[in-house]
């Protein structure tokens, strides 16, 4: 079962206003069993192994085991995501191969929740019929580029 929930670790997100894994799964697979207050994947064969549920679970109760119909047993890939980076651990089937650990940044320079859509570049005109989108033409340029646009380019110009 692609994503699976470790029984002892799942607390049903009691402390939160919504069940995190159920909220996030893009395919509506994670559900909370109201009797046991534990979550489960209701249709493993529709799971994309996208790890959205794994990354969001506050108690690290969800892991993924490779699809049983084509993945040999014994390996694992686990993820720990913080607000700035993600830490991966890859364990091989052959335990003689040293597990690999990788840490990658997930965002840069903007704190979680603070992505502001409109504030970065001025918008050139107020004309709904012009091809100028919000933040253009200024936003078409970078400091480093040689060509500076003072209007949205059109063909041959």
């Amino acid at each position, binding site marked *: 079962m*692609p994503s699976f929930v470790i029984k002892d670790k799942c607390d049903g997100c009691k402390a939160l206003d919504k069940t995190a894994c159920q909220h*996030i*799964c893009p*395919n*509506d697979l994670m559900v909370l069993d109201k009797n046991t207050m534990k979550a489960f994947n209701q249709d*493993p*064969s529709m799971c*994309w*192994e*996208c790890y*959205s549920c794994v990354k969001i679970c506050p108690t690290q109760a969800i892991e993924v085991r*490779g*699809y*049983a119909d*084509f*993945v040999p*047993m*014994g*390996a*694992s*890939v686990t*993820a720990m*995501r913080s607000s700035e980076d*993600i830490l*991966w651990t890859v*364990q*091989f*089937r052959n335990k003689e*191969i040293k597990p690999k650990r*990788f840490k*990658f940044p*997930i965002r*840069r*320079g*903007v704190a979680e*929740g603070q*992505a*502001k*859509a*409109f504030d*970065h*570049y001025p918008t050139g005109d*107020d004309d*709904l*019929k012009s*091809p100028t*989108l*919000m*933040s253009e033409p200024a*936003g*078409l340029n*970078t400091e480093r*580029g*040689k*060509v*500076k*646009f003072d209007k*949205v380019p*059109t*063909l041959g110009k």
Partner: protein
Amino acid sequence: MADFEVKTVETDLLICGGGMAACGAAVEASYWAKKKGLKVALVDKAAMDRSGAVAMGLSAINQYVDLNSGNNTLQDYMDYVRNDLMGITREDVVANIARHVDSTVHLFEKWGLPIWKDQDGNYVHEGRWQLMINGESYKVIVAEAAKNALAAANAQIFERVFITHPIVKDGKCMGAVGFNVRENKVYVFKAKATLVAMGGAVHVFKPRSTGEGFGRSWYPPFNSGASAFFTIYGGAEMTCQEVRFIPVRFKDAYGPVGAWFLLFKSVATNARNENYMQTNAAELEKWVPYGKVKPVPANLRNWLMMLDVMDGKSPIYMQTADAIKKIADQAPDEKAAKKKLKELEAEAWEDFLDMTISQAILWAATNVEPEVKASEIMACDPYFIGSHSGASGAWVSGPEDLQNSDTKGEYFWGYPNMTTVQGMFAAGDASGASSHKFSSGSHAEGRIAAKAAISYIVDHNEAPKVDQAQVDALKAAVLKPIETFEKFKDATTDPEVNPNYIRAKQYMYRLQKIMDEYAGGVSSQFKTSDRLLEKGLELLAFLKEDAENLAAGNLHELMRAWESVHRTFQAEAHMRSILFREETRWPGYYFRADKPSMDNKNWLAFCNCVYNKDTNEWKMMKKPVKYLSKL
């Protein structure tokens, strides 16, 4: 049957979907709606933070035209896309996206997306048009900006609401109908303009893995043809419905190959260590002029590989170890080589961990260390993803300023990205004949479409006159699978097997079997013919009739039922379009055995179609391909 409450939402602009194109639309629409005092609502079947094809993240931004550097022009990008699609492309739409995509990418960076930079502070390119990113949170960041923008415009967001049908009257779109997948609520959205951005379609064809790994298609199982259905059923003219996409990926888990081919300059070979791009090069002559362009079109690269597979020369391998060794060997000394090797290893794994984690699991489970051992690659199954290297979608108006006297009469009708249905706009996978927009271009196109839709609303600022009888009929239709299940479930001892209805999953399997065997799926090696298609359409007609008897035990299954109804329309448009185009043009996507060659004289044209829901009839049309510039 359980009671369902009807919620009516009135808005000016309705955005259907919450993916890359919808997030672009949300940002742009909010900006203009705020100025003009208009209302916006966005509806996603999932949670915007992780919905759509970018849910897992991505490791590259595949469209960055970099006009600002002076290295590329709009014309360069148009040439690239036109050639890759074997001449069938709407240059006006492609150029429109290309001229805006850089500003979208610059905004992504301002919103916090980590784009790789070299020592001089320049973006690191994967290939000419692609930028490398640390993209685990790509979608989270893009959704965050979209949600903040919507909040600034006092817009409404509906998550976990599944859109089933458009509301169209007299050729004009007035909104949409859907239901909440968590609560017994049917939604009626009344809008002055509606923007369709609900992605492409998978599981129309049978995937290679049919056990637990059924969901491991390359394209995410949560995009199920909603855009195609919405536009087709709404009566919009559709284009390129024959142009499916079949990516070549690492075998079974479908990990990306882009970084290997472009960044690491890796070579793929057959089992005898022959590079099929060289040994089968003569075949490219048959597909000139496109066979001779650089880079070789994606479908032709597929085709040269498939020729070897059909010749029994598989497995096909990506020679990862050779590629890594070649790069490390360029280091000045052994210490530097070792360091480089470590770097490359991390980059190789990150490529999977950012966007196809299953492939990392499969590598670990089969003890693959890419620097030591080659890995198998293979063609996946057919998908509908007009934003990538496929082209299926709605036929939309281009912008006025990117037309010449020749194209204007065919390609322009008032508002950029408006379909042929008044007030219905499309972007991303939902709009056709404008491939190679990918994540960034889809976002940019969402912005283009949203600004145009706001402009349309300002010009046509009248309340939608929604016909109550039509809404009541739609509500009844949407809930019918629940009613059918309730009515008959106790007639047998096993609710799975019951002669009165068909469950959503079995319906999907039936569709997939038809498509796989008659429309050139995996098991028929992507080959089909007129006779096969005709037979397939005959069987599809029975399936469509049986859709009336779909049964759903709960809201989740109700969503599954509607997903597959949506897929059915994508399937039918696809078969009819392959049949209509009497040639083989994209041999690596599908091959028509009865018409095995390209016929540029007669078929350098778009195959468009329109569906009439009142008569259940399809009209097929040839539309001219007109370039903005001379070749």
